[in-house]
């Protein structure tokens, strides 16, 4: 995969439309930023566990009591398009 294809593939994964100028700029910048990140790729980390979260490994329990939900109208009121009590999106399934 050449660089242009790689940029298009990542933009596709990120679900972001990029104009031709933006693609060129991100392509140039990404290479520069990743070069600055090389230091950690050369650091020996064998046997070092990953730290995903500063407080990971702590279980949190609370009673399984239902609470009042957020008001439906207020939530739907923020949607760009709605259909009754649902968020409306472009048709996903044909037929």
């Amino acid at each position: 995969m050449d660089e242009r294809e790689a940029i298009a593939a990542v933009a596709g994964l990120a679900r972001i439309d990029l104009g031709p100028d933006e693609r060129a700029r991100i392509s140039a910048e990404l290479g520069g930023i990743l070069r600055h990140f090389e230091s950690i790729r050369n650091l020996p980390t064998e046997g070092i566990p990953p730290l995903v979260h500063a407080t990971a490994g702590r279980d949190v329990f609370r009673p399984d009591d239902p609470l009042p939900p957020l008001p439906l109208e207020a939530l739907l009121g923020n949607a760009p398009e709605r259909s009754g009590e649902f968020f409306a999106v472009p048709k996903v399934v044909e037929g």
Partner: protein
Amino acid sequence: MSDLVSLSATALRAAVLQGEVSVREIVEAHLSRIAALDPRLHAYLGVDEAGARQRADALDAARRRREPAGPLFGVPVALKDNLCVRGWETTCGSRILEGFRPPYDATAVARLREAGAVFLGRTNLDEFAMGSSTENSAFGPTRNPWDLSRAPGGSSGGSAAAVAARLAAIALGSDTGGSIRQPAALCGVVGVKPTYGRVSRYGLVAFGSSLDQIGPLARTVEDAAVALSVLAGSDPHDSTSVADPVPDYAEALARGVEGLRFGLAREYLPPDLDPEVRGALERCVARLRAEGASVEEISLPHTPHAIPTYYLVATSEASSNLARYDGVKYGPREGGDRDLRTMYAATRGRGFGPEVKRRIFLGTFALSSGYVEAYYGRALRVRSLLRRDFDEAFRGVDLVLGPTSPFPAFRLGEKVDDPFQMYLCDVFTVTANLVGLPAVSVPAGFTSDRHAAPGLPIGLQVIGPPLAEAGCLRAAAAIERTCGVRGRAPALAPAG
């Protein structure tokens, strides 16, 4: 009473309780100062004049009924515009959320409300809190009150500028890699990044969920301590919030620093550190020693790897968190007449600004098949090494002292063309987030007339072990007292 805008939050509350001033008068003084100065500063994205007046009158009425007054009774507060406030617009400085009105309050906001605060408005920020200068806001930058040609820092630049310019007594910010502390340093105010989990994140728009914390910005350490006591505590809405009891942070401040052991990390004193930042730190060390503290050199050897580690972890988490902005549940929609996937990409392509796209892109790449172990996985292992550095340091010292930012406020536009240069602003702040530690930035001097940019604030940072906020604040109070910068205000003329 004269000059209500310059009083600290604790002094304002006391004045109200003694009947010297009404909450309405306090609010009016702040609203008129905002109207006069904010056109130049652009600290606020929105001011809720009617809501603030209504709230002030309600508090004054409660006072007349002799109802109990909370610890922030009558205190005017500004809120970073990535915190949900019921009924307000929350934009995160982004076009993609324009018009979004959350149907609930963030827990931090609800706690301030409960404590008697009056909310003045929502403050400017780098889009989705991604930046170190507030220049990434879709609604234009905030200016530094000490020099309008300079950046206030970021991403909580609006909150820091508002407090420094006396457009609010206290403000809330959020800190993912330094976004409270760095603007606090550049604007000459106090900024607190609590231990991860100390303050509930419920209602804070997520950026890097394992890094984000809400905290206060204030003009005095005491105000910051009072606000933190209100904000801290567990919350059933945030399972990462910690249940440990919340001390009275203000109570610890008077104890001084005698017997405290400070570590000065040699990695936080690089050769290119601004000489006057170094000078302020050296003076501070001498004063802490004179107060009975010990200061010794320590090493945090993995510090040079903190920036790459942070920018890989933060962007990876952001690429996932920001997947929710897709034109379905809120914000404007683009390409709604096309298929779903085209609509998503068009909405996001149009709605996000350049830095947010850059970070989503970087994070998506760091998590993508074939690269995830080399980038994200590697960053998480280095994160463990950074934690070991601090574990080791805290075996010998109580607190780590250093500069908050390598340099004082820089010019607007100076760093926008080189993203990595902007990322380096956070070199001393990101590790506290990666490791989950509390840290406080406190003003400790100003650049002198010999400096290329005289009269700019310099901030120092105190980092503590988990849940050692009281110790950090106690040290900050000693620095505040001995470095003598309290009370100095930026000279600001109303917009002409």
